[in-house]
């Protein structure tokens, strides 16, 4: 080991490719899909589907290990680092569009991390199919936001038919509409629904279920109108006596007096936090670079190296923005590097998420202020990036929830000791 900051070659190559995607398939359409909230950017979706199929990627989730060539020198794993870079640059392109990239997102990731080999085969093959296909994760309920112990959706086993019967209402499901609605252009998707199989058991009774699009009793009830990331749909899903085969449960079907299963789910969140951070940082970098370009056009030079007292207000702002964006990114990189190297990264993961949640709104808002009347206008994408950036401070645990997680890890406290 040593201290090093060289971008690995495969990542640099991927960055190059995705920059082209962002420049050509995302940015030119960003404004349109922001102004036309519930339209779907099929061009981008189809392009990404084909591109990923061609590259053999299939899904943005970390890949299973390839068979190793014993003659090749062993390289340290960079899967999460790769992913963080990909998400960062695609969000630099357009966070809303990125969020509906086909390939299964969090839904597929749940199957991959908690499913049996059989389940993986059954549910994940579709993402390499002819048409772009979506999956979504359904966790939040109206009365269960950060406090996931209050989930009320339930699954009852019908022993006669050997089916699970699901009831409940899930809100804030990202890409839920695309996962459930069978568009002409898309394959059959699914959602992964968190529900309790034993309401008395608290978190120990929580399980996740794969619910295929087309299942009777499952309905998309409401598409939210949002502040930002409008290219992605956020929906409410109602399950009314929705029946799924027994084998669609992810994890054990019996309840033991342990919250291991649930903690597993929470650990998945830990793993995804730096990835969410990366997305927020992508947006912030977009805004920073935009301001830097505009300032260069206006002939405004940023004099690095000067004491703060001798700077202009704008120089100081831009320098502070750079500090924020870069440091948030490095903290994120460290968190994914730890994940790749199987080091426990709960502290770093939540740190990166908090940082990105702070930095995105601050940097985008500063950018708007610096550009004045132009910054606030919908002529540029800056104001949109500001709206997009705020989501990072909110989803996958608000800044406050993540500060709690940071503090617990820092102080060595359990949840019961620091609420």
């Amino acid at each position: 080991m040593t201290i090093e900051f060289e971008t690995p070659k495969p990542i640099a190559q991927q960055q190059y490719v995705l920059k082209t995607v962002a420049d050509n398939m995302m940015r030119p359409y960003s404004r349109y899909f922001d102004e036309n909230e519930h339209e779907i950017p099929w061009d981008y979706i189809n392009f990404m589907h084909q591109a990923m199929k061609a590259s053999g990627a299939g899904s943005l989730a970390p890949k299973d290990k390839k068979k190793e060539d014993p003659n090749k020198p062993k390289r340290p794993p960079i899967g999460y680092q790769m992913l963080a870079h990909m998400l960062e640059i695609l969000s630099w392109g357009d966070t809303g569009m990125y969020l509906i990239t086909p390939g299964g997102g969090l839904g597929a990731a749940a199957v991959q991390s908690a499913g049996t080999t059989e389940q993986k085969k059954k549910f994940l093959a579709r993402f390499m199919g002819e048409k772009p296909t979506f999956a979504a994760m359904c966790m939040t309920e109206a009365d269960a936001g950060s406090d996931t112990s209050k989930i009320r959706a339930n699954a009852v086993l019908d022993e006669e038919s050997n089916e699970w019967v699901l009831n409940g209402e899930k809100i804030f499901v990202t890409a839920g509409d695309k996962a459930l609605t069978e568009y002409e252009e898309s394959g059959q998707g699914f959602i992964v629904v968190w529900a309790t199989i034993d309401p008395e058991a608290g978190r120990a009774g929580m399980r996740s279920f794969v619910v295929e699009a087309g299942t009777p009793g499952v309905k998309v009830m409401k598409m939210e109108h949002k502040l930002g990331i409008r290219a992605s749909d956020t929906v409410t899903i109602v399950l009314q006596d929705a029946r799924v085969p027994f084998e669609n449960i992810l994890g054990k079907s019996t309840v033991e007096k342990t919250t291991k299963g649930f903690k597993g789910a929470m650990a998945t969140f830990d793993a995804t936090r730096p990835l969410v951070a990366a997305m927020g940082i992508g947006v912030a970098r977009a805004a920073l670079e935009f301001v830097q370009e505009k300032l260069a056009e206006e002939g405004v030079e940023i004099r690095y190296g000067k004491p703060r007292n001798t700077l202009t207000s704008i120089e100081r702002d831009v320098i502070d923005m750079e500090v924020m964006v870069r440091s948030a990114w490095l903290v994120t990189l460290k968190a994914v590097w730890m994940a790749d190297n199987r080091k426990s990264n709960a502290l770093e993961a939540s740190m990166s998420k908090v940082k990105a949640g702070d930095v995105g709104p601050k940097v985008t808002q500063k950018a708007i202020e610096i550009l004045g009347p132009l910054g606030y206008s919908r002529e540029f994408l800056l104001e949109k990036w500001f709206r997009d950036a705020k989501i990072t401070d909110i989803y996958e645990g608000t800044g406050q929830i993540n500060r709690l997680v940071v503090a617990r890890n820092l102080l060595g406290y359990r949840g019961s000791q620091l609420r």
Partner: protein
Amino acid sequence: MYSFEPNEEQQMLIDAVSRYAEDLREAAEEAEEHARFPEGLVEKGWEMGVLQASIPEVYGGFGDYSSVTGVLAAEELAYGDLPAALAVMTPNLFVLPILLAGSEVQKERFIPPVIEMEWKAYTAALIEPIFNFDPTELKTTAVADGDDFVISGKKTYVPYAKDAEMMIVYANVNGVTQGFIVPAGAEGLTVGEENKLMSMHALLQYDLELVNVRVPAENRLGGDFRAVLAASHVGLAALAIGVAKASLDYAINYAKDREVFGVKVAQKQAMAFMMAEMAMEIESTRMLTWEAAWKLDTEKEDAYKSAYLAATSAIDMVMMVTDRGVQILGGHGYIREHPVERWMRNGRGFATFTGLAIV
């Protein structure tokens, strides 16, 4: 003496405006989504006569100009809805600069037609579509030519420019900003695109281009532009306070209502501290704004500076507060059903809105 309570007359006005602001609040979401106010809403606000009450009888009004009163009313209006508040107050942009920096003749001639019972689009053009816009160093120029001034330049964020009967255009005269009364349809004056901004969709604002627009020298407001700028500073500060207060109150209600981990959101120390700080910063800016308005009314030497400090405070305060308003609602704050996201978008603009409100 120090004193921190509105007088009786002001309190009555506050109460009346506050009732009207409830209508604004109710109409705000749809107005934003459809980029239009419901019929009669702005007119109803105008009919309350807030502006008229601050114009002396001799110019057609029925009261005396008071910056303090204007500030109190503005906060209440913005507590309802910022763009609607700006719409109701758009004629201020024309009337008050004339009152503050115009000649006796200009006041008698131009003010009375505006402050009639009916809201009419009299407006003003200050902001320019450039980087580092500075109201004290405008790029739009006015050059004396015989008995006329010839004005050229570009403007943006001009409310109701399309319907305006007359407007004030600010221009640079030998390094000094001066206002000029320009009639609609003046030769060389083109109303351009409707501005599409991050918020305030229902408040129609436009680009403006002036190519050698000629106005008689008597249309020039000869007074000190800094008085107008200061009236804008305290006006915007008051509006920012209103928006911030709206966001805080909404967040408090939400946080006291919603449970998380077995207690109310508001009972979480971190959340409670956030709201405490929001309240403190609102109160801080309000005190600065009141003092500045009082200094303007009593013509204190450092009144302009005070107004500027109030505006500076307001810009940062409203951003902090409205951002936290969204944050306290969490996921719900990001959904357009709740107004906090709209207030955050409003809040983001105050650094840019110079000249858009004058009280």
